[in-house]
């Protein structure tokens, strides 16, 4: 059986109807465990005190903000090349979730930065890149909202997503050049144990798993809604024609 069979909306609906509750439950469990563990059962950082605990929200949200855009890019490519409607709708569904993650990352970053760096907001490359990413999300969603014909909207937003991705990478480099930053290096990498002590690292991993699951569950849920909306639209058209 090929993965492409899920591109059939009926099949997609049947499978996700079973998957969404499971994924949602797993997301809730992971988030509960990760956040409670992180907030109440980890020691304070040697220099940041309890403010360090913001990373349990900040890092996963920031990761998902970028991954959501990547997912949109892949889904747009699949739509443009193979014309699977589910793919286009999944890209549409991911945008509001991605923009929420971006906002969470920006907000928690500001709350962390105020006591630690001494400023709510600095025009640091990473912070600025996230702000630009936020603007890209807004433009993408606005274009979806503005076009009536669903296929035209899917095509045009797909093209915008491709071009936007190239410019997002360019902007990242430009912003780096423009102002070298205060933001620490990435907290997580494959050899992250060197930087983040295990006590902080494990709850963080659980919290990240929770955010990933939450993201997948939300995107599937929203895609289902979009498919239903599309069916409703088709039904109305048929009724009017009859």
């Amino acid at each position, binding site marked *: 059986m090929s993965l492409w069979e899920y591109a059939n909306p009926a099949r997609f609906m049947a499978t996700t109807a079973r998957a969404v509750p499971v994924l949602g439950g797993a997301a809730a469990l992971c988030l509960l465990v990760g956040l409670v563990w992180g907030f109440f059962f*980890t*020691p*304070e*950082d*040697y*220099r*940041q*005190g309890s*403010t*360090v605990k913001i*990373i349990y929200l900040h890092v996963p949200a920031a990761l998902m903000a970028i991954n959501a855009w990547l997912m949109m890019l892949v889904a747009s490519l699949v739509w443009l090349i193979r014309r699977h409607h589910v793919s286009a709708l999944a890209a549409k569904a991911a945008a509001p979730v991605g923009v929420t993650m971006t906002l969470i990352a920006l907000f928690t970053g500001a709350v962390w930065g105020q*006591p*630690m*760096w*001494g*400023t709510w907001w*600095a025009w640091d490359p990473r912070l600025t890149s996230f702000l630009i990413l936020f603007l890209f999300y807004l433009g993408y969603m606005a274009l979806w909202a503005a076009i009536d014909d669903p296929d035209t909207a899917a095509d045009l937003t797909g093209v915008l997503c491709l071009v936007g991705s190239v410019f997002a990478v360019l902007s990242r480099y430009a912003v780096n*050049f*423009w*102002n*070298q930053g*205060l933001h*620490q*290096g*990435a*907290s997580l990498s494959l050899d992250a144990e060197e*930087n*983040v*002590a295990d*006590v*902080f690292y494990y709850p963080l991993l659980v919290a990240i798993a929770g955010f990933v699951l939450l993201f997948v569950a939300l995107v599937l849920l929203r895609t289902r809604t979009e498919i239903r909306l599309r069916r409703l639209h088709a039904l109305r058209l048929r009724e009017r024609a009859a």
Partner: protein
Amino acid sequence: MAGMKSLKKKRRIQVIAVAAVALALSTAMIGYAMRDGINYFRAPTQVMDEPPAPSETFRIGGLVEEGTLIRGEGTTVRFSVTDGGASVPVTYTGVLPDLFEEGQGMVGTGRYVNGTFEASEILAKHDETYMPKEVVDALKEQGVFQHAPGEAPAAPNG
């Protein structure tokens, strides 16, 4: 009609050729720019080597030198910023961020006047090390704990 079609083909090839040339040009220029990455901070060594004009506002980045932090009257502080090579005295009036301490990274915006960097803004630079307080205390007792050398904001041009 055949003439139209071949004309269309010809034009298409021309468009693609022009695009390919522009793309090659773009790659060459961006490649040139990337090779020569520029950094926005000045390290104390650079400031000492070529002192900027007193009118120029710039950023300095480095470690707060151990044993130089003096809190004066009011909220005025004096300290030196170093990159291991040179050391530049800094004065600043205002509230310092939590993470600001001796031996830690900082970034200041201001002017270099009469051998002193008069900062108008001080920001602390945080490294990506997260460790529990107790662990660090224990390490310090054993004399093992040291801040990573990479903590200073990277000096310009690597």
